C-alpha cells in the first residue's frame, strides 16, 4: 500500500518570492542586520550601560575614552556611551513616528485622489504640488522657529512635510490598480466604495508603501539631526544624535574632544546607510520591474 500523503509542498506565494529576491541582495541584508543591531542597542543599551545618561559628574569632565567610560565623557561628565545609545531611542522614534504621520495622511489623501478621480483628484494634487514646491528646509526652520522646539513638535513638523510623496505614490498605484478586473468584479457584485478601497484596492499599495517607510525613516532621522543640531529640535538635556553634535559647533570641542561627537555622527551615517540599503533592496524585491 503506497503512502497516501506526499511530502508537504510549500506554495510559491508572492510574498515568498519577494523574500527570495530580497535575500539575494547582499547589501540589503547587511542593511537589515545593521539596522536590527542599532535598534536593539538603542532599546537595551542604556539598560546595560554602566552609567545613567543624565548622570553628571563634574570631577570627570571631558575625559577621553577609557575602560571606565567607553566613549569618554562630555563637558559635564556625563557618559558619552550611555548618552549616544539613549539618543538613538529619540532619533529613531522621531524618524519612525514622523514617517507614520506622513504615511497615514498621504495614504488617505492619495487613496481619495487616486480612486475617485475627478475634481477631488485635481484639488488634492494642486495642494500636493504647492507643498512639494515649498523648499522643505525653509518651511522646517520657519515652522520650528514659530512653534518652538521639542520632540513632539519636531515629529509633527517632519511628518507634515513627508506626506505629499506618499500621496503621490499611493495615487499612482491606485490609478493603475483601479482598472484591473477584480475591482470591476467587486463593483459589479455590489460592493460599496469603502469596501472595494479597503479590501481590494489598498492592499495592492502596500509594496510601494513599504519602500516609502524605509526611505522615509532615513530622511526623518537626517532631518531631525539637522534641526536638533541647530537647537530647534530635541532640546538638551534630552539627547538625540543631532543635539549631541551641537557641541562640535565650537572649534575647541571639534578638535580636542572628538569622542564627544564622532560616535553620534557615525551612528547617524550607519543608520541612514542601513535604511537606504534596506529600502533599495525592498524596492527591487517587491517590484522587480522598477529600474533604479
Amino acid at each position, binding site marked *: 500500500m503506497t503512502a497516501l500523503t506526499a511530502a508537504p509542498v510549500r506554495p510559491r506565494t508572492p510574498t515568498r518570492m519577494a523574500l527570495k529576491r530580497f535575500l539575494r541582495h547582499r547589501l540589503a541584508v547587511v542593511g537589515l542586520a545593521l539596522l536590527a543591531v542599532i535598534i536593539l542597542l538603542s532599546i537595551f543599551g542604556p539598560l546595560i550601560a554602566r552609567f545613567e545618561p543624565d548622570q553628571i559628574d563634574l570631577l570627570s569632565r571631558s575625559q577621553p575614552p577609557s575602560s571606565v567610560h567607553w566613549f569618554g565623557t562630555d563637558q559635564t561628565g556625563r557618559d558619552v556611551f550611555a548618552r549616544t545609545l539613549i539618543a538613538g531611542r529619540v532619533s529613531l522614534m522621531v524618524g519612525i513616528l514622523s514617517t507614520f504621520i506622513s504615511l497615514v495622511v498621504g495614504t488617505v489623501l492619495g487613496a481619495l485622489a487616486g480612486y475617485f478621480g475627478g475634481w477631488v483628484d485635481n484639488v488634492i494634487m494642486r495642494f500636493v504640488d504647492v507643498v512639494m514646491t515649498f523648499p522643505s528646509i525653509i518651511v522646517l526652520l520657519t515652522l520650528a522657529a514659530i512653534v518652538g522646539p521639542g520632540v513632539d513638535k519636531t515629529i509633527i513638523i517632519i511628518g507634515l512635510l513627508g506626506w505629499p510623496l506618499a500621496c503621490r505614490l499611493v495615487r499612482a498605484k491606485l490609478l493603475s490598480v483601479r482598472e484591473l478586473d477584480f475591482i470591476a468584479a467587486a463593483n459589479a457584485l455590489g460592493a460599496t466604495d469603502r469596501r472595494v478601497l479597503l479590501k481590494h484596492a489598498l492592499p495592492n499599495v502596500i509594496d510601494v508603501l513599504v519602500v516609502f517607510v524605509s526611505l522615509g525613516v532615513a530622511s526623518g532621522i537626517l532631518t531631525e539631526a*539637522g534641526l536638533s543640531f541647530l537647537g530647534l529640535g530635541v532640546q538638551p538635556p534630552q539627547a538625540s544624535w543631532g543635539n549631541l553634535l551641537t557641541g562640535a559647533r565650537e572649534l575647541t570641542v571639534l578638535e580636542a574632544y572628538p569622542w564627544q561627537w564622532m560616535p553620534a555622527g557615525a551612528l547617524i551615517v550607519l543608520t541612514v546607510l542601513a535604511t537606504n540599503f534596506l529600502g533599495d533592496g525592498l524596492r527591487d524585491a517587491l517590484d522587480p520591474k522598477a529600474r533604479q
Partner: protein
Amino acid sequence: MGIYALRRILTSIPLLLVITALIFTLLQFTPGDPLDAYIPPDQVISVQQRQIIKEELGLDQPKAVQYVRWLGQALQGNLGFRIKNGEPVSREIARRLPPTLLLMGLGVTLGVAFGVLFGVIAAVKRYTTLDNVLTFLAFLGISTPAFLAGLLGLYVFTLKLGWFPAGGYQTPGDGSPLDILRHLLLPALILSITYVAVLMRYTRSSMLEVIFQDYVRTARAKGIGETKLISKHVLRNALIPVVTVIGANVANLIGGAVFLESIFSWPGTGQLYLDAIDSRDYPMIMGITLVLAAVILFANLITDLLYGLIDPRIRYS
C-alpha cells in the same frame, strides 16, 4: 519654444502668489503684536496713539487687504525692519546674498562636474570593482547629513591637515580672490557632495539605459570609436533626465548652505537666517523665506526651460 516658455512662466506666477500667501499667513502666527515692530521699545504711548499708528500702517484692515499691501511693499523692495536694530531687512539680505550665491554657484558647478564624471565612469566600467566602490561612496554621500560632512571636513582638512583656513570669508589684511577662494573651497566641496552622490547614481542609470538602445548599437556597428560614441551619442541623451535632477535638488542645496555657512562662518544669507531664528527676528525670517522661495521657484523655472531646450520632445507635448 517660445510658447512653451511662456506657458511655464505663466504657471509660475500663481504658484509664487500662493507661496507668498502662505508665507504671509505664517507671518500672522508669529508671536508678538506686529505693531510693536514699528515702535521703539523705550517709548511709552497711549492707547489712542497706538490706534492711530495702527490705522496708519493699515493693520486694522481685513487680512486680505493687508496681504495685498504687504505684497506690494515686498515687490518694491520693502520687507520690513529688523527687530534687532531697526534696519531695513532688504538691505541686510542684499548684502548677504552675494557670498551665498558664490558658495552655491561653486558647489553646484563642482557637484555637477564630478557627479556626471563619476557617473559616466561608473556606467562605462559597470559591474567592476570601481563601479561598486563608486556606488558605495554615492550611498555614503546621500546618507551623510550636510552639517556632519562639514564638521568632518573641518576636522580632517583644517584642524588635522591644515590645508584650509577654519572659516570666514577672507583673512584680515588680505582680500585677494585667491584668498577668498581658499576660504570658499572647502565649504563648496562639502556642499557639492550631495549633488555628486545623487547625480552619479542618476547619470549611471540613465547612461545604462541609453547604452543598450538600438541606435547606439547601430552607431557601434557602423564603426564609430568607443570614446566618440560615449561622448557624442550616449552622453547627450543620457543627460536629459539629469537636468531635472539638478533642478529638483536646488532646495537641498539651499538647506546644505544654511548649515555649512554656520559651521564655516561664511557670511551669507544662511548664517543670517540662523541668526534671525535664534533671535526670533520674524520680519527678517519672513523676508529671507520670501527671497529663498523666489530663488527656488526661479531655479525650477530655469531648469524647466533648459529641459525644454535640450529635449525637443518636451516642447511639443
